[in-house]
């Protein structure tokens, strides 16, 4: 600790250079943190749903292959099923947007709350959803995006069904990251029947909540068994596996992002190593004198290394902080993007913060170690010779 003054003084002797190096490290750490938020956002998303008891039941052939909605009733009778709800993609576009800008589904009002107790939708709003056929429950992210309030009326035109429906918003999913829009199945069913069509007889996905987490696998087996040799054989998955698969197709893209992250991290080490060696070379005479008057190698090595590590840590912390500020701003502007899904939520998790700090420590060590070691090892006479 008593050498702290020396370390700081050395950092301050070429303020411009220290500032430039610090800024470079800060930017690089910021960059790495921003990139890490993408897989971290996905991870967080998946881990949040990892230990819940929800199961997705969908057609074995694909999510776009429907199941008869009557299958939901059979699913509810399966031992250990607490609740089940049939969901059908509505594909509605809000008039002003002209295209699908948030995911919207037709659901069963009387069952939805029981399948999603963790969404914390107020019971009186769920009651309103059941009461009003044209009711809708909307995620807060979408509410905010369009400035909707509970009680507002909105019209969605479906691209999938030949209808355009008016809704009254009766409830909100109280999470800033929920883009969802739920409507009543009966409402869509009636609208189709009014056109002389068969009505809504299919379900895209049946979401099931198991009463007991240990029963999840048994329930999944039993549901799949029940549908065997029927028109629509099902494939059950846990919610985590469902979403992991759903976004698995982005894997190639994420891999490339991570490769580039590694490249950028390498880039930081280069910059910092370059600067550290410049600093040491310039101070050759001074280091030789320090040694000549009796400072040990260890002290020389330690102070030089501490200099590099101090700089990179301070810069790294600034980078991490900046990434937090930036992502908060980004989130405010960018909403749910249909092509990126949860990857579009840039969240600086604590894991990212820790990784960022470790990265900056590591950069400081790596950049400082070679020149510091070299300077500490160099014989005094040789150095003094060079200088004088």
């Amino acid at each position, binding site marked *: 600790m008593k050498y702290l003054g020396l370390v700081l003084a050395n950092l301050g002797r070429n303020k*411009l*250079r220290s500032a*430039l*190096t610090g*800024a*470079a*490290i800060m*930017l*690089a750490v910021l*960059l790495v943190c*921003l*990139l890490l938020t993408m897989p971290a956002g996905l991870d967080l998303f998946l881990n949040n749903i990892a230990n819940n008891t929800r199961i997705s039941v969908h057609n*074995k*052939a*694909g*999510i*776009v*292959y*429907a199941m008869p909605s009557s299958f939901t009733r059979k699913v509810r009778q399966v031992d250990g099923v607490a609740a089940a709800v049939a969901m059908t*993609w509505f*594909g509605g*576009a809000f008039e002003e947007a002209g*295209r*699908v800008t948030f995911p919207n589904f037709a659901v069963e009002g009387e069952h939805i709350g029981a399948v999603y107790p963790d969404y914390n939708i107020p019971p009186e709003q769920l009651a309103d959803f059941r009461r009003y056929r044209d009711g809708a429950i909307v995620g807060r992210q979408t509410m905010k995006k369009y400035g909707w309030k509970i009680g507002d009326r909105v019209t969605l*035109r*479906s*691209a*999938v*069904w*030949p209808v*355009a429906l008016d809704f009254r918003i009766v409830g909100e999913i109280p999470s800033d990251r929920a883009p969802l829009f739920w409507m009543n199945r009966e409402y869509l069913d009636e609208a189709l029947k009014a056109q002389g*069509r*068969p009505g809504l007889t*299919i379900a895209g996905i049946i979401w099931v909540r198991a009463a007991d987490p240990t029963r999840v696998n048994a329930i999944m087996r039993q549901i799949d068994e029940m549908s065997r040799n029927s*028109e*629509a*054989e099902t494939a059950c998955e846990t919610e985590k596996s469902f979403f992991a*698969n759903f*976004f*698995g*197709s*982005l894997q*190639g*893209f994420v891999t*490339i992002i991570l490769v*580039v992250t590694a*490249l*950028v991290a*390498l*880039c*930081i080490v*280069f*910059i910092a*190593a*370059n*600067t550290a060696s*410049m600093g040491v070379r310039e101070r050759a005479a001074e280091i030789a004198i320090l040694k000549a008057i009796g400072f040990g190698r260890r002290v020389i090595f330690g102070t030089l290394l501490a200099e590099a590590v101090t700089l990179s840590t301070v810069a790294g912390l600034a980078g991490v902080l900046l990434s937090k500020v930036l992502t908060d701003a980004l989130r405010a502007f960018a909403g749910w*993007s*249909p*092509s990126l899904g949860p990857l579009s939520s840039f969240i600086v998790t604590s894991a990212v913060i820790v990784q960022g700090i470790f990265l900056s420590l590591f950069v400081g060590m790596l950049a400082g170690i070679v020149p510091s070691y070299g300077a500490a090892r160099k014989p005094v006479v040789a150095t003094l010779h060079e200088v004088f």
Partner: protein
Amino acid sequence: MLPLSYSLRNVQARPGRTLMTASVIALVVVASSLFLGLISSLKRTLVTSGNPRNLVVMRKGSDNDGSSQLTIEAYQAIRYFDGIARDAQDQPLASPELVVQPFFHTRDGGRENVLVRGVEPVALAVHDSVHIVEGRMFLPSQGEAVVGRSVLGRYAGAELGNVLEFGRGKWKVVGIFDADGSSFESEVWVDVRELANDAKRPFPYSGIRLRAATPSDIEPLQRRINDDPRFAIEAQRETDYYAKQSESANSLYVLVIGIAVLAGIGAGFGAANTMYAAVQARTAEIGTLRALGFSRRAILLAFQVEAVALAGVGFVIGAACALGLAALLRVMLGGVAFGAATFTTNVVTLRVRSGDLLGALGLAVVIGLFGGFGPAWRAARMRPIDALRKA
């Protein structure tokens, strides 16, 4: 004016330090050109899918044919509209199509949504970039399929003569098609009726692709379809449709350019450090040059040129690495699968083209200018007397 060789030789004077700084710039060049290449490859794949003479007819409000459904009445009405090209048998070149995205199992056990397009034989006349290159076109109602070149070998059973399992049925692969590198190559085509049966769709079609008789027929035809009050449908040029699809890649552009600029600024700081050190080391030299009568502007320019040359070295190294890395990724990953746009897998062949390198070159030059200006300014502002005294 100082001769150009003064700046260039100085770049060579300290090869170690030059290489260090240049490699930082090179890394930025690698990152940015790879990213740009990835996105432009994706966009190229999508954009080349559109034919300027074709119209895409979908339900209003749907932004891709995977999320559109059309009634049979709509197809029958539109099919005989004026302005649609006709084939030798005087049949309209109107291709009713059903798009479904079933699960396909990749050979490494993963699962991807692949775009399966149910078509009639007329589809090959409407999509004239699609050619069967091996085998033959499927026969209707035989459980046969033809697969695009990028699908080939990516999924279990996706080989000529093999059986592909998707949806509820099994499909025999009887042909392979290519489509000038467009996104059709990531699709599987089967008989439209068989697919509708297999998927049990309440509506038989997703949309219709039309070929206009002449380019001047496009607009009236489009207007007539859009204004038809019976069906809420919408026609757009196929080129516009795919251009819109490729816009989903624009959000990636923002991300990538953001990353490249941040990394570039970082590298700029690195370059500035090197150049400041160079200026400091050559204080006496600068003093001498000033004493000899070289103007401030000449010195500013000389150092600025040196910085840009340094960035140029970085660019050359980086561009070579980027091309190599892209080739390596092509071999290792095959195509890069994008799940973007319509939730179907688009297999994109990563190619770093001159346009992407040009973007990276621009960035490298800016890094050189931006990193070199401060040091060059300092060199130019030096008072000759002070500079010489220091020596």
